[in-house]
């Protein structure tokens, strides 16, 4: 007869408790032993560290990033900005297609690759978004979502200055995209960084309206942005049909 399994001496070396301790250590090191304040959210165990980093980001954003993005919107005519967006979106669509395949969503991947073919071929290298005009929808997949679909937990929420809100899972996705992205293979240092700069400007300009909404609506901008980000990512991982959240 089989008896109940013997409780072994084996203990995972990096169990949840150890992990928690490690995280706490990193957090403590980064904020200089600041005591935890406020109720911690289960998705944001590193809140004290993140808040400090958000403070850095907010200062840089207010002083430099946001004004530059606003100047870009004010100075550069809309059709030109649209072309810039289209070119970067075309590259993103290609990666969306790859992630569609990785997630086994072949219909979506087909649409994305179709978009890239159409926009690159007939849209002059992605300058025109013909695919959207004929109604082929963008898949909007990325590596972070792929990891989510594969079952990787989201991990702690992170706020990285300049880059913005992310999680361990999404950050890993971002790193993969960064290394794989065509920009990485541009050898000319100056050109490469200019491209990163323009891509960033395009994204930051796109988010200007959202920033205004946050300024008005949020009681605590840090919490507001965190919750909006996590809700949005959850929605994307479930392709717009997230199961209802369980109440704690």
């Amino acid at each position, binding site marked *: 007869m089989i008896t109940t399994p013997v409780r072994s001496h084996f203990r995972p070396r990096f169990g949840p408790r150890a992990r928690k301790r490690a995280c706490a250590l990193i957090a403590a090191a980064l904020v200089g032993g600041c005591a935890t304040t*406020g*109720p911690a*959210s289960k998705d944001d165990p590193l809140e004290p560290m993140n808040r400090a980093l958000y403070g850095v980001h907010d200062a840089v954003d207010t002083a430099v990033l946001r004004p530059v993005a606003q100047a870009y919107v004010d100075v550069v005519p*809309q059709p030109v*900005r*649209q072309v810039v*967006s289209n070119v970067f979106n075309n590259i993103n669509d290609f990666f969306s297609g790859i992630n569609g395949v990785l997630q086994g969503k072949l219909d979506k991947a087909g649409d994305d690759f179709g978009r890239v073919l159409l926009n690159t071929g007939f849209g002059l290298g992605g300058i025109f978004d013909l695919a959207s005009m004929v109604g082929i929808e*963008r898949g*909007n997949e990325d590596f972070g979502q792929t990891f989510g679909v594969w079952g990787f937990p989201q991990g702690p929420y992170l706020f990285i200055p300049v880059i913005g809100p992310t999680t361990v899972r999404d950050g890993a996705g971002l790193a993969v995209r960064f290394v794989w992205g065509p920009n990485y293979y541009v050898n000319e240092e100056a050109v490469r960084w200019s491209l990163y700069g323009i891509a960033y400007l395009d994204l930051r300009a*796109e988010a200007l*309206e959202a920033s*205004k*909404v946050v300024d*008005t*609506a*949020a*009681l*605590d901008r840090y*919490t*507001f942005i*965190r*919750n*909006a980000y996590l*809700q*949005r990512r*959850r*929605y*994307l991982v479930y392709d*717009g049909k*997230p199961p209802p*959240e369980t109440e704690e």
Partner: protein
Amino acid sequence: MSRFEWIAQLRAALRHASHSFRGVWLIAALLIAAPALAQEAPDAIVKRVANDVITTIKSDPAIQAGNEARIREVLEAKLLPNFDFMRMTALAMGKNWRTATPEQQKRVTDEFRALLVRTYSGALNSYRNETIDYKPLRMNPADTEVTVRTVVVRATGSPIPIDYSMTKTPDGWKCYDVIVGGVSLVTNYRDEFNDQVQKGGVDALIKTLSDRNKGLAAK
């Protein structure tokens, strides 16, 4: 008078009467239609209100000139009667709602409502040439809660899905949550409201909301 003539005259008289009673018929028709209007379907409400607000915003010279106070007037008159702010606030407060007195509940609701109106009018101020697609509504006649799905298609940038959670009340269907690109407005406020209540009770929440509204009004 022959019998035929008599009938013809009677007909003419009746026609005349029905003609002059047209007003009465109209009123009668309205009375029959009124209950039907009160039970306007949730998706029809969203469509009607959105069209109404957009038409007004496009045609109002003060709004075109960027007058936010005028936008708020329009929202107050056309949009807000279709929201259930009490329900919205209760959901955003979660378990803290039950610990609040009716007076506190009312004050939080009023302040939250004012904040949402400010946010909304600010967002509408940058309204350009968006069009709204309405997804077909799936609902059973017995449903008391439905989600009306729409997609805002912009001239530039990706389309934004906006869903309206609607609940059936004695005054017709009312909206109690707006979900923009998967981000629920009510859920987004939950942590912030809870943090405030943890810090200084429901009164702290009321104070923070009201300070924020005063600050925005002074801008």
